[in-house]
């Protein structure tokens, strides 16, 4: 057990180190931006042409006259306590801005993951069992094509067909079922293509293992083989890709959210980047890093829980 503990501690430590580096990166992003934060904050609070003394006082208040390192330390201290600063544009705390947008993104990520897994896993399994069937080739074809088409373009084509021509669905996204349908389809398609191919490859791999041959020799039915022996192993190897996919959906749907004007955190980042609202971007980067690290930890834990061999190896 001690090796497993040491391994987990090592993972935890590298994760923490990555988090720390992400925090430095976020800090640099906030501070390397062009423009004077003091001036921007004063204009955000309603002063059109703030007098020089006011700007200087604000700079002192924000600590901008101090050396970069001491600014970083006090910034990190505030971040650890949940204070992520205020937006240069609206003057509101960026954390509350983020929290307003978060439910829409969470909802979308949940929907996309549910839809894509419930299609991709059966599709991949069937493709593997009935290899070289029509369905297998069709899935292969779609996966190759799907990897080449830009998502934002599919989004526009879907808007053109279903919103502009047929008028079935709204062109603009919103956190309602109808408003989420089109963006969810666009986000789920590449997911389905990738995951179904992955499931297929893993299934073929698992079905070639010795223990499957043994179980078959002992007279286990093919369905028993698949669901009793193969599926747990397939699930174990899917944990990491799926948790990384979830991490991506929670942070990286920037482009698609922009196309549909969907009120999620990705579009907030684009809006912030366009107007140079760096604290918002800094928070997005920070949270993206945090989600990635946590997703990796969860994937490791899940792997250890599902695959006894990992625990076994650690014991020896």
């Amino acid at each position, binding site marked *: 057990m001690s090796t497993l503990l040491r391994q987990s501690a090592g993972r935890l430590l590298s994760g923490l*180190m990555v988090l720390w580096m992400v925090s430095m990166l976020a800090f640099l992003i906030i501070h390397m931006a062009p423009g004077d934060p003091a001036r921007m904050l004063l204009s955000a609070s309603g002063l059109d042409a703030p007098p020089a003394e006011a700007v200087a006082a604000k700079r002192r208040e924000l600590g901008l006259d101090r050396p970069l390192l001491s600014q970083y330390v006090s910034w990190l201290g505030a971040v650890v306590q949940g204070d992520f600063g205020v937006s240069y544009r609206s003057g509101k705390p960026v954390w509350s801005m983020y929290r307003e947008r978060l439910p829409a993104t969470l909802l979308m990520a949940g929907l996309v993951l549910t839809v894509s897994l419930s299609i991709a896993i059966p599709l991949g399994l069937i493709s593997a069992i009935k290899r070289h069937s029509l369905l297998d080739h069709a899935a292969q074809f779609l996966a190759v094509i799907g990897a080449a088409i830009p998502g934002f373009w599919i989004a526009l*084509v879907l808007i053109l067909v279903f919103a502009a021509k047929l008028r079935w669905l709204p062109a603009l996204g919103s956190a309602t079922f109808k408003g989420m349908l089109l963006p969810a389809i666009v986000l789920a398609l590449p997911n389905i293509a990738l995951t179904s191919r992955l499931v297929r490859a893993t299934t073929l791999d698992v079905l070639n293992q010795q223990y499957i041959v043994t179980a078959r020799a002992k007279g286990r039915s093919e369905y028993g083989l698949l669901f009793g022996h193969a599926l747990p192993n397939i699930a174990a190897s899917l944990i990491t890709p799926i948790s990384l996919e979830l991490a991506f959906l929670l942070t990286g749907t920037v*482009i698609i959210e922009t196309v549909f004007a969907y009120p999620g955190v990705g579009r907030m980042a684009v809006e912030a980047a366009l107007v*140079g609202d760096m604290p918002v971007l800094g928070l997005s*980067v920070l949270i993206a890093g945090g989600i*990635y690290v946590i997703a990796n930890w969860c994937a490791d834990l899940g792997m250890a829980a599902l695959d006894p061999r990992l625990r076994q190896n650690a014991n020896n």
Partner: protein
Amino acid sequence: MLIAVIVGPWLWQVDPLAQNIGQRLAPPSLSHPLGSDQFGRDVLARMLIGGRWSLFGAGFVCIGTSCLGLVLGACCAVGPRWLDYLLSRITETFQAIPPVLLALALSAILSRSFSNLLLALILTNWTWYARMYRALILKELAMPYIEGAQAIGVKPLAILLRHVLPNLFGSMVVIATTNFGSVILNLSALSFIGFGLNPPTPEWGNLINESRAFFQREPRLMIIPGLCIATTVLWLNLLGNALRDRLDHYQGIRD
């Protein structure tokens, strides 16, 4: 597609910026095989020039990331363990942040221009290369011939440059080709949401963006650049797969 983009502008000598208001949104005809856009500009000429920006931009990013990834991967593979650990954590840090988000932040810092967009793409794209090259170099260094070279007293740097590098060349081509397509997709996506070339310069991504205002009346303006991107990326992905099957010492190492 590559050939069309390189040779095309010479064969089809129509100014992609020349406006002709009388010909606004004209359907395809003999003088404009793909029709004209909202300012009466020739779509075919704009597609060809736009393809140059997209493909050369993405090519530049691939070469840049290859070099950066190779150097960092080599540092990880042959450097001391603390350097390997540090660089691996830095790689993970950059992997932890979605490329699009990082590119957004960088373009907000660096002001919006095409060269800064390329720089941002390089900075967000190198992690995958670095991990790949680290694994490849480690694998190569474990080969018996390296031990032989060390035994007869070849200096470590000479081993890297003269023995390892030439053997990596095939894999480098495969890696860059495989990645080329996704760089084109990322480049056009960022350019599409407005971080890239400014109009009127055409690029496949911003051509799609410009067509959004008219795409109900004239879907052609949006469909054509999208098809250009899709066919190019499809072709590159297939080429990458074919090359990988050919040069199979890349196989077995997957990130």
